[in-house]
């Protein structure tokens, strides 16, 4: 149920994101979701890619610092209140969202959000028990 996310440290300098995407493109890996969190000096680029190991190795070879984190992909109904339902459930279960971002592709006519929870296993448990569909990693990546 967990999905492997890559995170890359980048300085706030011109062309750094393009540098990362071209390395990934070169090894023929597809970026499925991407988000950037930044400060005035640096940023963390978070990505779900079709082949995490291959992308990670390529980035490391080029000298980037790459982290791996387990995140959860959840189907979100494409209608008012769809995301609200999930967030309320998480909050009422005493769990926290560290960050989240959306995926570029639609799965089963639903939007997909990537969540990083403070307690990943508990979150998966709560979501599944409430019938909220957590997406299996093989539908998000090719791993």
């Amino acid at each position, binding site marked *: 149920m967990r999905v492997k*996310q890559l*995170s890359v*440290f*980048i*300085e706030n300098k011109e062309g*750094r994101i393009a540098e990362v995407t071209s390395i990934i493109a070169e090894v023929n890996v597809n970026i499925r979701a991407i988000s950037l*969190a*930044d*400060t005035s*000096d*640096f*940023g*963390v680029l*978070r990505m779900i890619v079709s082949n995490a190991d291959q992308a990670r190795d390529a980035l490391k070879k080029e*000298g*980037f*610092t*790459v*982290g791996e*984190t387990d995140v959860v992909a959840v189907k979100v109904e494409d209608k008012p209140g769809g995301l609200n339902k999930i967030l309320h459930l998480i909050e009422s279960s005493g769990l926290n969202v*560290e*960050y989240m971002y959306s995926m570029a592709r639609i799965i089963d006519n639903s939007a997909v959000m990537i969540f*990083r929870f403070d307690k990943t296993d508990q979150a998966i448990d709560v979501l599944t028990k409430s019938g909220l569909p957590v997406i299996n990693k093989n539908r998000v990546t090719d791993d």
Partner: protein
Amino acid sequence: MIFDIEYETMPREALESIQLQRLKATLERVFSTVPFYREKFKACGISPYDIQTLDDLQKFPFTTKQDLRDNYPYGMFAVPMDNVVRIHASSGTTGNPTVVGYTARDINTWATLMARALSAGGATRGDIIHNAYGYGLFTGGLGVHYGAEKLGASVIPVSGGNTKRQIIIMKDFKPTIITATPSYTLHLAEVAKEMGIDFRELSFKSGIFGAEPWSENMRNELEETLHLHAIDIYGLSEVMGPGVAIECVEAKKGLHIFEDHFIPEIINPETGEVLPYGETGELVFTTITKEAFPIIRYRTRDITSLNREPCICGRSHVRMNRVSGRTDDMLIIRGVNVFPSQIESVLMKTDVIKPHYQLVVDRKDQLDILTVNVEVSESLFSDEIKDLQNLEKKLSSDIKEYLGVSATVKLVEPKSIERSQGKAVRVIDNRKK
């Protein structure tokens, strides 16, 4: 004005004969009272009784900062603690700080030499001295203070910090001499300007600036902004403190070393060979009147040269040129000694792997700003911004805690720090530009 005309203008031959006599006495004393020197002299097969001329000093071994650390805290003292009336210590470096002691006579000698120094810089007993060197373990504050009193001037022991109050004191108390680091003085001038006070309308005639290296360009800036004579002073706690050497206001060209108390040598830092007058190398000092903490051939790691030419001020003592650099990579930031290796050991408390880092020093609004760039390794990295920001804060507070200097820590990408022949360039000092 020359404070001590007999000694300061003493003809060379007379001076050298006093030096030889005092040197012999010092060597004999450390040989019998300090085990460190006794063992070292014996290992070199040399005895203080062999000394015939001043050149014989060259046969004796050097003393290094590491020797002082190894003998922390009191191992190098040559008198019983009963006779020690004062203790100072240098800012602690990677290991132990260097601890120095003074007998009552040492304190008196120091005060006399500082009085000479202030006098050479233009001070008289009629002056009011605004002493903004820090009071405490650092020798700057108290060193100047005792000298000012010895001279008979009026001293305002204002110490460092509390800038606005300092400016009000300058305006109201009308001091005529300022003693401070040059960078802090320029900062004072900036803040004064913001408060609507022009330094040129204050009563200063001389500033005695030291505790950090400064340049001829800075002299022009100081003299222009502050409307005073900017005088360079040199000293280090291992040798005594401030007042080892001073520029005279008449020439402002090189610092007279008080040779009746200290013997300077310039050596090739690689080979240890003594270089002739005029050549540039590492400055080495032997004290010849100190009681509690005599030191033999101490390697200062400061790079300079000696000038034997007679000076228009009438002093016969040799002049050292401005310190142009260091043989190690020590930085002086707001008066605090900082070695890159200290930053490294602070970083290594957090990161298990040896980090790549770089110190960048800038001068902004006349204050030294230290930035430490740290390459983000995998063990430091987190996917969460707040973790990374907390890491920056933690490292910067660790540096403040262990080194006593404020630094901004900036995380940078791996391999972004410039390498020179594979070795990271540890220090970029933009102040010298």
